């Protein structure tokens, strides 16, 4: 406390600057030190108070150390406490003087009054002076055995403090094992809780160097300890309950009846008024049921009401913390909350960070039955005085439009936004209409009629302007004056500050030219000239590229710049599902509030102890394969795929219309020629032309982005697998622990495969037909996790595979472990080829 560093701060009138007051105090303390006059304690109290108040406001009073210690020979407990506080604060910076206090603290540790024993012991351990640790061991040892629970409670924390000052002294004195004994036998629950906290910290810190410590750490989550704590949970204080619940999260029950026992025992914790207890309980429930899809689903239903109650009771701060967790659950399983959408309506007086969460939740839960109301509500916010929130509300409407099948009504709303004539509303709405058209080209007629009425002069924001220009280019055949609007934009080239807009303008003029050549020719010429002269490298490069490709062959240019487009079915999500899963695993922690996993904001040494998730433990072995994913789950999968966010989609989407790239282009003729050859081959290949995704790959490569062209389907290698391989789960688990990862890679899953992966079962049967067997599977959309195994034909050599498939990114993360490392590459090829055939056969 009392940061000495702050002492130079300019003092406010209520805060004396220090110097003279401190020396004054020093004098007065000295006078009182030896006095035995009646009432001297009262005068001391006044002086001590002054000292501590100076300390708090940041005045350095460490020079009084000697006098304070002299004055502390008293039986007045209030004085003693103030003195302890002072000493604890300054001992670290005055290690020599701290020695002075040892004597009276040690004496107090043997006092008759347990209060004084406890207080003295706490202060003794709080000195944080390394060369005094030898004086700690004795009092701590007797403190742990004290008959009074207050003293034991303090002593346990004292052990932890000692560990932080000198780990070796603490370990040598065998304190951890005493704590372990106390944890399992003490009658006082706060002593037990403190032992648990201390042991978690000590053993986690030791685990990196000591085998034994890591065993002890694991023993904390063993069945006997967990059951012992769970059975007493109601005796613990609410804070200690949180501690125990957190520990239980890491426990892996052996079977489902155990899971249900634990859940039944903890059921009433969900009705607790303390949000921390409820969230800790929910985490236990969620973790325990991860592999039991239907029960997991029930848990969601079950925790809904308590969470909503917590959100609406308590302080705004607490309610925010709970709401963030609710947000996480809503994003994972929106269908569970779709009838509760009214709870996510924003209230006018809520802070922006709450409104933002609620907007995302409203977007997520929108479905056929509630969309009308939700969109109506969101439209109210669009006129909100809080402009950032108004903008986000409009974006939310757009996102809902993108994830709905019947967008009719929403399109009308969006078009109404365009007519509201508020700059920011128009800007946001334009961007949305553009995205909407990319997904639902059939709406072009209605949209274009309205967009055509918007004067480009009223649109200033680069993103919106780019969107408008994109539409002008894309739909120039439907918009009467498109060439002329573009022409006037080109004329004002120099006034356009955003490179993004200029890039779009180039492309749009090109597209317009292909559709209406006579009207656009002059604009195109002007645009290319301006573009080539542009100081911005990307704009310059693109203009030059267009110019050269036009000169080479106009029809090739058209096929490159304006190929027939397939509607975008899925916009990419900004956050990978791996990250989302990490955050979910860290439920009831800051990760949920920050929306990032802990490794992104915590230093290594401050990671929470006991972070040892057993990968397999989270999945049910064997039986999971028989679980049928409920259809709702599948729907959810679909929706999650459609959850879009603007950032990534911008880059991804532009791949389709060939704009907004940074094009590394060296301008040499050979390179153009080489690229040209590729175009030829790409375009002449009838199967690739136009609508297949491979076509865009080819174009990407032309642009030198280094993205691999059509992924080569590997030919099946020589490796032969045993069709009737068998491996029991425990052997698998053991092998998985022992073997190193032989290969780890990311494989793209073809779109048919993604579509076919509605439930884990589908893939299991398919892989089995390739002699790759599943031992465990689980997860929920969009993330599925599988553990496969295979055996070499006529050999007992095993291959173990962990495969995490993310359906929204269409990627599979594959880890392979093998008994025979030499053939793991062959097996990997085999696996990849089997996976690539999924959904096509």
């Amino acid at each position: 406390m009392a940061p000495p560093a702050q002492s130079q701060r300019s003092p406010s009138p209520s805060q004396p600057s220090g110097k003279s007051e401190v020396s004054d105090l020093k004098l007065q303390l000295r006078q009182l030190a030896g006095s035995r006059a009646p009432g001297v304690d009262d005068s001391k109290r006044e002086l001590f108070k002054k000292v501590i108040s100076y300390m708090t406001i940041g005045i350095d009073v460490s020079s009084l150390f000697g006098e304070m210690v002299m004055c502390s020979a008293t039986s007045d407990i209030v004085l003693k406490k103030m003195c302890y506080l002072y000493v604890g604060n300054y001992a670290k910076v005055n290690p020599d003087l701290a020695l002075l206090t040892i004597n009276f603290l040690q004496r107090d540790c043997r006092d008759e009054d347990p209060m004084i024993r406890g207080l003295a012991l706490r202060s003794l351990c709080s000195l944080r002076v390394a060369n005094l640790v030898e004086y700690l061991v004795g009092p701590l040892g007797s403190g742990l055995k004290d008959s009074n629970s207050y003293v034991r409670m303090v002593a346990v924390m004292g052990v932890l403090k000692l560990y932080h000052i000198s780990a070796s002294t603490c370990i040598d004195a065998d304190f951890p094992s005493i704590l372990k004994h106390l944890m399992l036998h003490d009658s006082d629950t706060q002593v037990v809780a403190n032992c648990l906290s201390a042991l978690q910290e000590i053993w986690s810190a030791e685990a990196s160097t000591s085998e034994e410590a890591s065993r002890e750490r694991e023993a904390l989550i063993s069945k006997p300890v967990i059951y012992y704590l769970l059975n007493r949970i109601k005796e613990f204080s609410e804070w200690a309950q949180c501690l125990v619940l957190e520990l239980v999260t890491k426990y892996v029950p052996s079977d489902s009846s155990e899971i249900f026992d634990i859940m039944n025992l903890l059921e009433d914790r969900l009705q607790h008024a303390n949000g921390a207890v409820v969230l800790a309980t929910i985490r236990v429930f969620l973790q325990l049921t991860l592999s039991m899809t239907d029960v997991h689903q029930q848990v969601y239903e079950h925790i809904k009401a308590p969470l909503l109650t917590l959100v609406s009771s308590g302080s705004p701060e607490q309610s925010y913390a709970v709401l963030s967790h609710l947000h996480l659950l809503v994003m994972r399983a929106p269908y569970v909350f779709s009838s509760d959408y009214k709870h996510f309506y924003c209230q006018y007086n809520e802070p922006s960070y709450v409104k933002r969460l609620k907007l995302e939740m409203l977007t997520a839960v929108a479905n056929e039955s509630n969309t009308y109301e939700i969109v109506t509500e969101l439209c109210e916010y669009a006129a909100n005085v809080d402009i950032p929130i108004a903008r986000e509300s409009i974006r939310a409407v757009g996102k809902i439009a993108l994830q709905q099948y019947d967008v009719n009504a929403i399109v009308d709303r969006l078009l109404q936004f365009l007519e509201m004539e508020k700059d920011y509303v128009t800007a946001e709405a334009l961007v949305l209409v553009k995205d909407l058209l990319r997904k639902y080209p059939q709406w072009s007629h209605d949209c274009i009629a309205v967009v055509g009425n918007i004067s480009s002069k009223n649109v200033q924001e680069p993103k919106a302007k780019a969107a408008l220009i994109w539409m002008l280019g894309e739909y120039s055949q439907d918009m009467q004056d498109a060439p002329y609007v573009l022409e006037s934009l080109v004329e004002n080239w120099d006034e356009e500050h955003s490179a993004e807009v200029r890039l779009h303008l180039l492309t749009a003029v090109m597209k317009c030219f292909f559709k209406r050549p006579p009207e656009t020719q002059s604009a195109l010429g002007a645009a290319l000239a301006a573009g080539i002269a542009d100081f911005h490298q990307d704009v310059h490069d693109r203009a030059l590229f267009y110019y050269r490709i036009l000169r080479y062959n106009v029809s090739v240019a058209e096929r490159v710049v304006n190929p027939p487009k397939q509607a975008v079915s899925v916009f990419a999500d900004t956050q990978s599902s791996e990250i989302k899963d990490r955050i979910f695993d860290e439920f009831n922690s800051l990760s949920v509030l920050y929306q990032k996993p802990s490794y992104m904001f915590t230093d290594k040494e401050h990671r929470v102890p006991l972070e040892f998730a057993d990968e397999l433990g989270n999945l049910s072995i064997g039986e999971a394969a028989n679980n049928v994913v409920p259809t709702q789950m599948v729907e959810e999968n679909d929706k999650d795929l459609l959850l879009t966010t603007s950032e990534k989609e911008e880059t991804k989407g532009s791949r389709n219309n060939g704009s907004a790239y940074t094009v590394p282009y060296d301008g040499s003729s050979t390179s153009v020629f080489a690229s040209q050859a590729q175009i030829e081959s790409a375009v002449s290949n009838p199967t690739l032309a136009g609508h297949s995704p491979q076509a865009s790959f080819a174009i990407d490569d032309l642009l030198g982005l280094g993205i691999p062209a059509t992924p080569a389907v590997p030919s099946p290698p020589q490796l032969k697998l045993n069709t009737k391989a068998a491996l029991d789960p425990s052997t698998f688990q053991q092998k998985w622990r022992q073997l190193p990862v032989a290969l780890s890679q990311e494989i793209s899953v073809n779109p048919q495969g993604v579509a076919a992966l509605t439930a884990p079962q589908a893939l299991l049967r398919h892989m089995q037909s390739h002699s790759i067997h599943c031992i465990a599977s689980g997860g929920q959309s969009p993330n599925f996790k599988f553990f496969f195994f295979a055996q070499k034909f006529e050999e007992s050599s095993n291959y173990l595979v962990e495969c995490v498939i993310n359906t929204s990114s269409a990627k599979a993360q594959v880890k392979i472990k093998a008994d025979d490392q030499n053939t793991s590459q062959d097996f990997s090829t085999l696996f990849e080829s089997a996976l690539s055939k999924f959904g096509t056969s």
Partner: protein
Amino acid sequence: MISQFFVLSQRGDNIVFRDYRGEVAKGSAEIFFRKVKFWKEDGQEEAPPVFNVDGVNYFHVKVVGLLFVATTRVNVSPSLVLELLQRIARVIKDYLGVLSEDSLRKNFVLVYELLDEVIDFGYMQTTSTEVLKSYIFNEPIMVDAARLQPLRPAAIFMQGTKRMPGTAITKSVVANEPGGRKREEIFVDIIEKISVTFSSSGYILTSEIDGTIQMKSYLTGNPEIRLALNEDLSIGRGGESANDYRSSYGSGAVILDDCNFVESVRLDSFDMDRTLALVPPDGEFPVMNYRMTQEFKPPFHINCLIEEAGHLKGEVILKVRAEFPSNITANTVVLEMPLPKYTTRASFELEPGVTGQRTDFKGANKKLEWDLEKFVGGVEHTLRAKLTFSQDLHANITKEAGPVSMTFTIPMYNVSRLQVKYLQIAKKSSSYNPYRWVRYVTQANSYVARI
């Protein structure tokens, strides 16, 4: 596990500062204050209760204008820490009687004493006022409660009801009253915060009641207490959607969507006769929180009309009717309404002869404000405002203004009809008859009428 705890004044001064683990640099209070003060350059957005600066996580809650802050480097449960901060504020209030910058400054030694027992080396030990009593030796120094803005929600009882002893709720749990005798009394407050959104056509879009039964006990010897609620109270709306209003409006039954309880409540007979049994610990605590979406009669009906009245002119007519009985009076009623952004002037016209009403046009954020000190049940009040605009409105005037939002406090009235039927104190002595106060209050949480 937390690293530091501190309380900052509105100006950013340290009132108390306790470092438990020495892991976070000393300047954290200043870093924190600067960050909170300048969260966004435009000053528009307030800082969230939790944020991270250079690997240090800062948690804060605002209580009576003070910032209660905790720091840590570890990825802890945010609700745990925020709950703890709130609880520390409550414990301090229990001891000091009044929580304010002044009372904290006068009693900081006592506060340090509390902090040392509440948290040890960053780990929570106890936040029970009851348990803490045996560890605390400093006597609280009382500040003059009358001079201070008392802490909500206690403040809401101060006006409007004569039955309440004014200072009772600002009494420390440890201080003795003059004469050395403690007055035996117990307070049970039913506090309901209501949220209603009216559509432009006046029908209810959403409504919710968030209620708390709060208790503050000054009983010696901790006798057991039985609190009986409405017998027809039911909890959980089963398969019904939470937003389905068809249910039982006016039928008498009180249906809670959900509720939660403080740890020490025994619910043995709750299912049978809706009775809560508990041994109230010293200090203030919520016995039960509940949430209700059952339809209720909104206490105020708002009618707002805004229209153009000639070139660069507009008119607003705002009518509010109190729908509660005339023996009840709401106080501190405020209505606010954003006006079109080109509004330069607004002139107001109140009903002839009314007193205790105040109107204002806030030029900076183009807001109309209407304060009514008192609002008697059954009465309707009207405000007319003539607006002058600096330029033509582009769109429909209704799209440029509103919504109307309202705040109020209605003492001795609750909309849910949840009631404490009786409050029984189990102590077998005929002479023992402590004061029991059961108080109801309704407050606006978000009360909005769209136009």
